[in-house]
């Protein structure tokens, strides 16, 4: 009996010793990350483009923001006049849809007069830090490239103006390089031209005939249309 009691006492003592230890302490702090969508397009130059044809050379060679390439009638100094600059700031991958509000240019003196949209064309130049996908490549070919433009074959071809909506710029689906960024990342210039007959490999090209050679000849008028741009999240 005495041995049992002593054994129980010893075990009790050992168990008590087993409870002693280093004491730690903890705190838990909740952290929240609130990502608000930022999506902003800003046209910084060339919000209104007007081509004025007043010489036979203008009709024959057209007018262009890229006179050296287009071989247009206007002098180089007039280039910036036909240029639209814009920037995109987006916190997510984005796409830009554009197009003419009308199916043709509409005469202002006589609304019955129409001029085909593809008499106007443009090239797209990226002046920010993001890069185009390689010309001719399918989307997502180059990881380091954040931008993709089918109508201009990634900035290399002259595209004819289309009616709205046409997808102009989109994310390149690169797993490592999104086209999200600020205005320094996503800065673009649209170099407009009219009547320059630049037919390349773009999906929609300019008219192959100059305004001088078209049948029937365009009726003299002031032709207008609004070109719409819509910036959206590219999921």
């Amino acid at each position: 009996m005495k041995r049992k009691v002593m054994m129980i006492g010893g075990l009790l003592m050992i168990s008590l010793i087993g409870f002693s230890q280093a004491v730690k302490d903890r705190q838990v702090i909740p952290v929240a990350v609130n990502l608000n969508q930022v999506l902003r397009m800003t046209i910084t130059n060339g919000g209104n483009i007007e081509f004025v044809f007043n010489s036979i050379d203008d009709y024959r060679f057209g007018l262009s923001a890229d006179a050296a390439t287009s071989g247009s009638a206007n002098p180089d100094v007039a280039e910036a006049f036909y240029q639209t600059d814009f920037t995109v700031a987006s916190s997510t991958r984005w796409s830009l849809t554009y197009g003419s509000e009308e199916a043709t240019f509409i005469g202002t003196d006589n609304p019955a007069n129409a001029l085909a949209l593809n008499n106007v064309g443009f090239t797209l130049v990226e002046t920010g830090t993001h890069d185009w996908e390689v010309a001719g490549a399918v989307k997502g070919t180059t990881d380091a490239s954040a931008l993709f433009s089918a109508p201009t074959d990634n900035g290399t071809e002259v595209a004819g103006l289309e009616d709205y909506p046409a997808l102009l710029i989109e994310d390149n689906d690169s797993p490592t390089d999104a086209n999200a960024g600020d205005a320094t990342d996503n800065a673009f210039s649209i170099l407009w031209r009219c009547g320059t007959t630049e037919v390349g490999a773009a999906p929609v090209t300019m008219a192959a005939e100059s305004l001088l050679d078209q049948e029937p000849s365009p009726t003299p008028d002031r032709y207008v249309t609004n070109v719409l741009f819509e910036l959206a999240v590219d999921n």
Partner: protein
Amino acid sequence: MTISIFKPLNHFVGIVSNELIFSRIRLIILLLLAGVGTGFSQEWNYARVVLIYGGDIPFNFNSINRYAQGLEIEEGTILGVTLADSTQLGHDLTGFDLNARAFNGATEILGEANSLDLDAIRIKADNYLGFGAGFISTGYQDLSSGWTTLCSFTDPGPVFTNLFWDTHQLVISYECGIPVSAGGNGTLLGEPPDYYRIEVELELVPTGPGF
């Protein structure tokens, strides 16, 4: 008659008394042993970390500039540290480590419908009050599901001087979405909008020989 009745009783009482004496001795021995055991069971130290300021850390990304440059919340949380040595033989308290991890084994920062990598958030601990020589901060560390040491303190004196929360305080800074070029793990540009949440667990661990 009366005496003859009580004699056996007295004899009986005498026997019982001897047994009681032995029982009481055993009981006293047991209590002494238990007392010694209780003495041994005293913890090696006392440790307490208290939240003084900044129990909720919000990162609000609402401009492209914030997305592009990331956000840093300096001195977002202030912690008071109480640490005392119990002078237990073989357990010499000399200081502590402050560790951090995502609470409850979380492996990502969860939003309503999306998630971010844990290392989008980085944490740093610095001396705010009272810690001089012997304090070492490891700088910004990625939040991860495992423990990461943010800072260490080793008392430079020969004997550990107890720390108290009102005179010894740590400050925790947080950063989120810092670009790689600035030493972070990349911006949150391109990440889907959502309200992401995570809990950061901070642990005060005493250090020293025997701990």
